[in-house]
């Protein structure tokens, strides 16, 4: 079997004084789509942001290997250059900097790192026009300042546009589906589907099952109080949708063994 794209081993993450992640194990192989679900405050976004290298998220224990390399040793920009992408739950405004300029600067820096030739303005615009189709936006979208004055839906689409331009190997989407109407949700889903390839992997962090109607995950993991308490196939998401997170709570901590072995895929995806 191919070497895993991402291996998380016993990851503990602290924010301020509080330990949020209390031992996460996860293996993501190329071509796989993993959904990480869980109630508010369970640590989903912490996992996503820690993977991207946010300075406020302190790793106190554990390891993360990306393509066999120590991800935690890398600066956030190095992670991006190596092919990791985080779609932010709350993308930041960058006043005065156009989307096009920002994306060109990012793409060219990544290309430079990979020893590829930089795009000139003309070629880049051509590429950008292609990618705009993925998110169904017109051209003035790229001339607007990054996220400034964008609606919630536009911000999320912009994250997908960035993902489409940068073409990461590992995309982590942090609640990209939250707060979207059904049309925007479909666009986000089609963006993810567009990215999907046997040599790439996708980790969807989500509160709701509904995006999983459009993107079928290979694995679903339930995060609860900083630990995975249940893993399974796509049917787990439907169970959660039907019974709610309280169903897991009701079944008690004994039934919540991390990386539970009830489904065959789960044993493959976590250890």
């Amino acid at each position, binding site marked *: 079997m191919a070497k895993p794209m991402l291996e998380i081993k016993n990851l503990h993450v602290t924010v301020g004084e509080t330990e949020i992640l209390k031992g996460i194990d996860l293996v993501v192989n190329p071509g796989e789509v993993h959904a990480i679900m869980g109630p508010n405050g369970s640590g989903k976004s912490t996992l996503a942001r820690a993977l991207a290298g946010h300075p406020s998220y302190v790793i106190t224990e554990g390891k993360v290997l990306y393509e066999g390399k120590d991800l935690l040793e890398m600066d956030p920009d190095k992670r991006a250059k190596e092919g990791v992408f985080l779609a932010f739950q709350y993308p930041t405004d960058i*006043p*005065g*900097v156009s*989307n096009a*300029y920002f994306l060109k600067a990012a793409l060219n820096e990544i290309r430079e790192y990979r020893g590829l030739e930089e795009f000139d*303005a003309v070629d880049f615009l051509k590429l950008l026009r292609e990618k705009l189709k993925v998110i169904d936006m017109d051209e003035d979208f790229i001339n607007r300042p990054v996220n400034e004055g964008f609606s919630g839906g536009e911000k999320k689409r912009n994250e997908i546009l960035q993902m489409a331009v940068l073409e990461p190997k590992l995309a982590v989407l942090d609640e990209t589906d939250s707060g979207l109407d059904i049309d925007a949700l479909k666009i986000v889903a089609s963006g993810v589907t567009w990215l999907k390839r046997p040599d790439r992997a996708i980790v969807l962090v989500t509160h709701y099952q509904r995006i999983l109607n459009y993107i079928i995950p290979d694995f679903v993991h339930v995060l609860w109080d900083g630990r995975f308490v249940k893993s399974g196939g796509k049917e787990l998401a439907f169970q959660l949708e039907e019974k709610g997170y309280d169903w897991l709570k009701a079944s008690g901590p004994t039934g919540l063994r991390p990386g539970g072995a009830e489904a065959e895929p789960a044993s493959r995806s976590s250890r």
Partner: protein
Amino acid sequence: MVAEKESYLTTFEGFEKRVSAKDPSWVRSLRKGAIERFANLGFPTAKDEEWKYTRVEPIVRTPFKFSLDPSTNGVALSQIESFSFGSLKWPRLVFVNGFYSAKLSDLSGLSGKVKVGSLREAILKEPARVEQHLGRYASLEKNAFGALNTAFVLDGAFIDLGVGESVSEPIHLIFVSSSPEGAVLSQPRNLIVAGKGSSATVIESYVSLADEVYFTNAVTEIVLDEGAKLDHNKLIRESEKGFHIGATHVCGKKGSFLSSSSIAWSGRIARNNLRVLFDAEGSECALNGLYVVSTGQHVDNSILIDHAKPSCTSNELYKGIVNGRGTAVFNGKIIVREDAQKTDAHQVNKNLLLSEEATVDTKPHLEIFADDVKCTHGAAVGQLDEEAIFYLKSRGLREKSARDVLTYGFASDVIQRIKIAPVQKELNRLLAERLQMEVASEVLS
């Protein structure tokens, strides 16, 4: 600083005998009145509210050569080219140490009727016309440097736009300082008279060719008659050791419109005074400013908008980027007089500090004596947003690139308000150069 003041007064006596004697009597009395004013005021000190954060001692204590020599000091056109925004074809007036140089100037692109030339020449050839306006708009009350400039008024630019005249190309006034034989004081005096319904774009560039000590004490008076439109751009690009104190006094008549951009780029001490008086109803101004300050530099913008008449609109945006141990001051005052109902006045000053040692003092204030007005003001001093830096880094930008992109973004709205594309482009380039930016500067939103 009494001794220094005396030395200026003595210099005036000599000037009076050698130069002033030949001039029309109204010019002589203008000078006389001004030197008396200066003698009374003396140089400003820290006790003076207007000068609280800007110490002028380094200027006052430097003995400057008072140049009466209208030679070009060997300045060649090729040396000026780099300050021309790639547009040497624009009509231009070049001054060396305050004196008009016909050789370096080129007005061939102007249509025959528009009067653009040296103030010196205008004083001698059409004294009545100049007398109507010179010294009428620059108040010398509490204005020692303005008084000093007026006392020695001799040369500068004179732009006289007739009724309905419109000049499409920017008129570029380039003030070059060149002090190969000791620190020179130059005191250009400019007068822009925009007749009814006229329109023009003027750029004032203050530049130097070498890293020399000198002092530019400049005054520009602008009067906009009914419905006149002026786009006025001032770029302070003095040497790292150069001193600049400059004032622009604007008087706006009914329905006039001023757009103004003040860019303070360099100089050891640069003080930019801008005074706008709305002298009639329905006038408008949009004031736009950018200052970029590094170690060894001090920039002070002092802006006053006097809403003396009703239904006038002012919008003011000044932004500063302060780096290293640079220091900056913003002092913005809006007065809304009792009669000035329906005033619409907005003022914003934002400062970005790029280092721990950088400092800025900002003081936006409103004095409102009318009751039916819309006025807002605000000031901010901050650093680059760490969340934004992380966001950019997560897209592959290095820390340095991320900071550069954000700094660019900070300045870009001010740069974009400049209406002259080549000037915009040049400022983007200069910003990249100054902050040693590694990201390309071409495309900004």
